[in-house]
């Protein structure tokens, strides 16, 4: 048993420990990785340096074209280690443009499908309105592309997916998470600041993960797959979701059902993981 555990750990290839570019390369078919607007294109944020912040040559977004199980694909990976994966004008435009190109491919008979590797705190505050506008464009592009092909969002961790990009995640055809992932509109510190530490202690990690962590989101039916932090297993789940084709009805189009469930919540009691799960359980349309 001891040896079996060691063997299992030795064979595991962590996905979350990879950087954005390595993640995209690991998921695409071997040898098919081709980056659009790579770091040597020097398309970095024009706003960060003016505010005394060191920019990154790719603005924290990797757009990789290639093949996924022999099919044309684009993988868009956000680098969580650069500025918390925040999205500004340039990075946001790279994502929106890549999704729009994939939709154009589909209109021309090339069935390009998209995977979003979401590792982001949402809009980059230093680029406020420009980042928000870019996120709106990303959301519109996801809705356009998902008419043709499934758009799959993967939240692997450790940053998680928050803010406007959590709404973008909600628009994806399918969502895949690991245990390390978190998904929520507001991050823990923002909620603590607004609601008070008695209600939401951002330093209480088990509490935070019990409400917004990957396992909880899966048990609540808010995501479609829950996967171990392993490159092969993640790739396998992505392919399985693509094989299902487009969902009959996207999660975001089931808003009426979700609103009805949320209206039944008793806000006078502190929510816990079990209460949230039972809120979201029930016959889904």
């Amino acid at each position: 048993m001891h040896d079996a555990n060691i063997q299992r750990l030795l064979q595991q290839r962590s996905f979350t420990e990879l950087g954005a570019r390595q993640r995209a390369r690991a998921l695409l078919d071997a040898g098919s990785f081709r980056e659009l607007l790579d770091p040597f294109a020097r398309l970095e944020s024009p706003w960060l340096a003016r505010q005394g912040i060191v920019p990154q040559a790719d603005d924290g977004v990797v757009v990789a074209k290639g093949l996924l199980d022999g099919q044309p694909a684009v993988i868009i990976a956000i680098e969580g280690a650069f500025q918390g994966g925040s999205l500004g004008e340039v990075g946001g435009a790279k994502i929106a443009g890549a999704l729009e190109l994939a939709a154009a491919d589909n209109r021309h008979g090339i069935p390009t499908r998209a995977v979003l590797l979401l590792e982001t705190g949402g809009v980059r505050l230093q680029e406020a309105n420009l980042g928000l506008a870019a996120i709106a464009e990303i959301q519109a592009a996801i809705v356009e592309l998902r008419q043709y092909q499934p758009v799959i969002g993967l939240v692997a961790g450790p940053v998680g997916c928050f803010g406007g990009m959590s709404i973008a995640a909600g628009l994806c055809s399918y969502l895949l998470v690991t245990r390390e992932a978190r998904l929520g509109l507001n991050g823990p510190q923002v909620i603590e600041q607004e609601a008070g530490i008695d209600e939401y202690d951002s330093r209480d990690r088990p509490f935070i993960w019990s409400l917004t962590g990957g396992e909880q989101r899966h048990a609540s039916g808010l995501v479609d797959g829950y996967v171990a932090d392993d490159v092969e297993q993640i790739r396998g789940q992505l392919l399985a979701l693509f094989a299902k084709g487009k969902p009959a009805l996207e999660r975001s189009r089931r808003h009426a059902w979700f609103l009805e469930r949320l209206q039944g919540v008793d806000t006078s009691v502190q929510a816990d993981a079990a209460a949230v799960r039972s809120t979201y359980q029930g016959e889904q349309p």
Partner: protein
Amino acid sequence: MQTLSFEFPAGQPARGRALVGCVGSGDLEVLLEPGTAGTLAIQVVTSVNGSAARWQQLFERLLRAQQLPALNIAIHDFGATPGVVRLRLEQGLEELNHA
């Protein structure tokens, strides 16, 4: 934040290009591209002000042991220690050899 420029003598232009690292806390991004024959040009954008002498010494120490090909090196530094910088530079040079 500060932008620093350095120049050192070098050999013939490098063949390929390479990127290593990330502008994350305590880390840096290094982009290496072929330069003009005879010149190693390094531009550093760093979050740490007043660190010019430290960078100068770090590059001099790296070049004491080896002659580098002509390169344009761009560094985006987010508070990396000299040890991390040295490792990233060595990693970038190694990647060039495999490019």
